[in-house]
């Protein structure tokens, strides 16, 4: 009778990086791997292995716990941008890697060469209030009906619009698509806004409903 593993599910699809490099000569230095999770982007995303030093442990293979540790340096290409040599040892244990065969490598390299640079997301300086907040503000007689937008200190591919600049991203309850997830799994995308974590305002129903926050 076999061991029956019981645990949480996830959406990773592939093998551990150590399982791939362990099967290759010189730990796959020079070979290309890709993370299945990043294949959703239109721009090419892949890693080229620069050096790999696995620290295989021989314990508990029946618990799927071997081939998890080591140090790996890769040349990271993410969404068409080369990030140089980075250390991905922390995420190498994830069962989400796929080897790119040598005859497929040219396709990825060509895609990288021909990939146009990603458009910067220019965010509006102000956004409309969520419906419930707006309602409360109106009831209590506040002057403001908009909220000032703030970004994190180092936003990823986004910035606030300059004075008088037209933003290319619209953020409002009418246009905002909100992912509804249950235990991390996307079940639907609705047009609406998060009024409060766990409470979703749906444009179609015009009512706030309880959902798991994203």
């Amino acid at each position: 009778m076999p061991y029956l593993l019981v645990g949480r599910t996830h959406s990773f699809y592939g093998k551990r990086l150590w399982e791939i490099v362990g099967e290759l000569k010189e730990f796959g230095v020079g070979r290309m791997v890709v993370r299945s999770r990043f294949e959703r982007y239109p721009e090419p995303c892949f890693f080229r292995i620069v050096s790999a030093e696995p620290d295989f442990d021989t314990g508990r293979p029946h618990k799927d716990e071997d081939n998890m540790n080591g140090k790996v340096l890769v040349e990271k290409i993410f969404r068409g941008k080369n990030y140089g040599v980075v250390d991905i040892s922390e995420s190498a244990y994830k069962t989400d890697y796929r080897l790119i065969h040598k005859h497929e490598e040219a396709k990825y390299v060509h895609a990288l060469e021909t990939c146009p640079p990603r458009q910067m997301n220019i965010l509006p300086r102000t956004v409309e209030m969520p419906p419930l907040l707006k309602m409360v503000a109106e009831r209590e007689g506040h002057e403001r009906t908009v909220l000032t937008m703030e970004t994190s200190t180092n936003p990823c591919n986004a910035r606030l619009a300059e004075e008088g600049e037209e933003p290319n991203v619209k953020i409002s309850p009418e246009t905002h698509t909100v992912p509804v997830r249950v235990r991390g799994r996307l079940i639907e995308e609705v047009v609406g806004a998060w009024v409060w974590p766990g409470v979703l305002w749906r444009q179609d129903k015009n009512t706030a409903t309880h959902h798991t926050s994203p």
Partner: protein
Amino acid sequence: MATRAVLSRHINLLHRTRLYFRRQQCCEYLSAAYQCEEAWNGRLQSPLIKNIKPGDYIYDLEQKYKREGKISAIDVDLLMNAVDGSKAIDLVSDIEEIVHRLRRSRESVLTLPSTHHALLRYLQLKNATDTILKIISDPLNYGIFPDYYTSNLLMDTFLKQENYTAAARVASVNMLQEDFGPPLTQTLALASCFAYVTCENNQPWIDYKPKPEEPAEEVKIRVKYLRNPYFDDHFDLQDPNHIVGKTLAWLSPLVGGMIGASCELLGWALYNKWGDLEAALHRIKDGNDSVAVSMVQRIKEIIEQCEDGDVQEHLKVAMSHLEQVEGKVKEVEMWPAIQTLLSQVTAQAEQQDIKTQIDTYQCWEKGRAEEFQRQLDEYRKRELLDEIEEKKKDLAEREQVIFFFDNKEKLELVLQQKKDQYKDKSKYQKKQKKKLDTDYIPPEV
């Protein structure tokens, strides 16, 4: 219709039997000079290896492993080169264990290229085919990859022994690494796979990958995350026909010509990649290369096994289109053609390969000496540093004793500080036991 099928099967059987006997007659692949015996045995005279007694050395390595819990790549390399396959002593299982330990340690990165060659060559001389196949089929646990020259030697040996399964398995390692090497390695790999496919009574294809021992009853184990089912269609391939088919399909375009075209079609058919097979049929139909009639027959047989009716129909149409082109399907014996190609390639490459290999042996010896020296220097440096550290400690202690009265005031101050530090005794003292009331009587419930 049925009569035609029976007749076709008989013709095929006859053809294969003829092929088998023809293969028996000519089994000369690489010459004896290719083994580079003299240059290889030259390593035993090197000062590093000459004094090593393999039995004692293995014992020392075991002791070191038990003491320090690690194994050094240069030590393993020295052992691999020191063992002599021509001697009666059998160290196969010990060596296998040592290589496994090295692979699972951090030192695995430092494995020298000569280790791979020396180990496989030793096992080949010892005729330990099972161990060779086990080691090269499980890189995660052994990490031994044959280089081009070693691949050639192994495939040559197995072809001569008519162990086509083993030869095809060596060829499939090149496919998994996606590195088919120079033309000689390519041709030998093609010959090995072709021999495996056409031979009727092959040795069994054993799965050497280790499986964890399973308990008698079902045991549920809590893990953090479950793994989603995933089949990579490369390292996970299990079916021998798929592995050999993929090897043929990827390798044959490099060989080219009639042999390449025929074997490519056969490869895609064995690999059951019907889309690729159809594309290859169209490409070959439009190209200049012809296909052997025996291969066409074989591919047709395989297509018959395709479960998807539409796909089968498409393939049959593509096949008939290929056959209709004049001069595309030729009555050629494949095995003699492969033999001829092999002898041509061997004649071209053999001398150069021998020269290169002799240079490689010298290069390895130099590299080994340098690595040994580096490790020796590092060991001495570490020993010296330890010694200095010990001496510094000793001097500091002596200084404290000699200058005690000079530093008395300072030391008293330090002592006072220490006392203050430990003043809050409650932190460090053991909890006092509660006083037991001897007269206590527990209430009745």
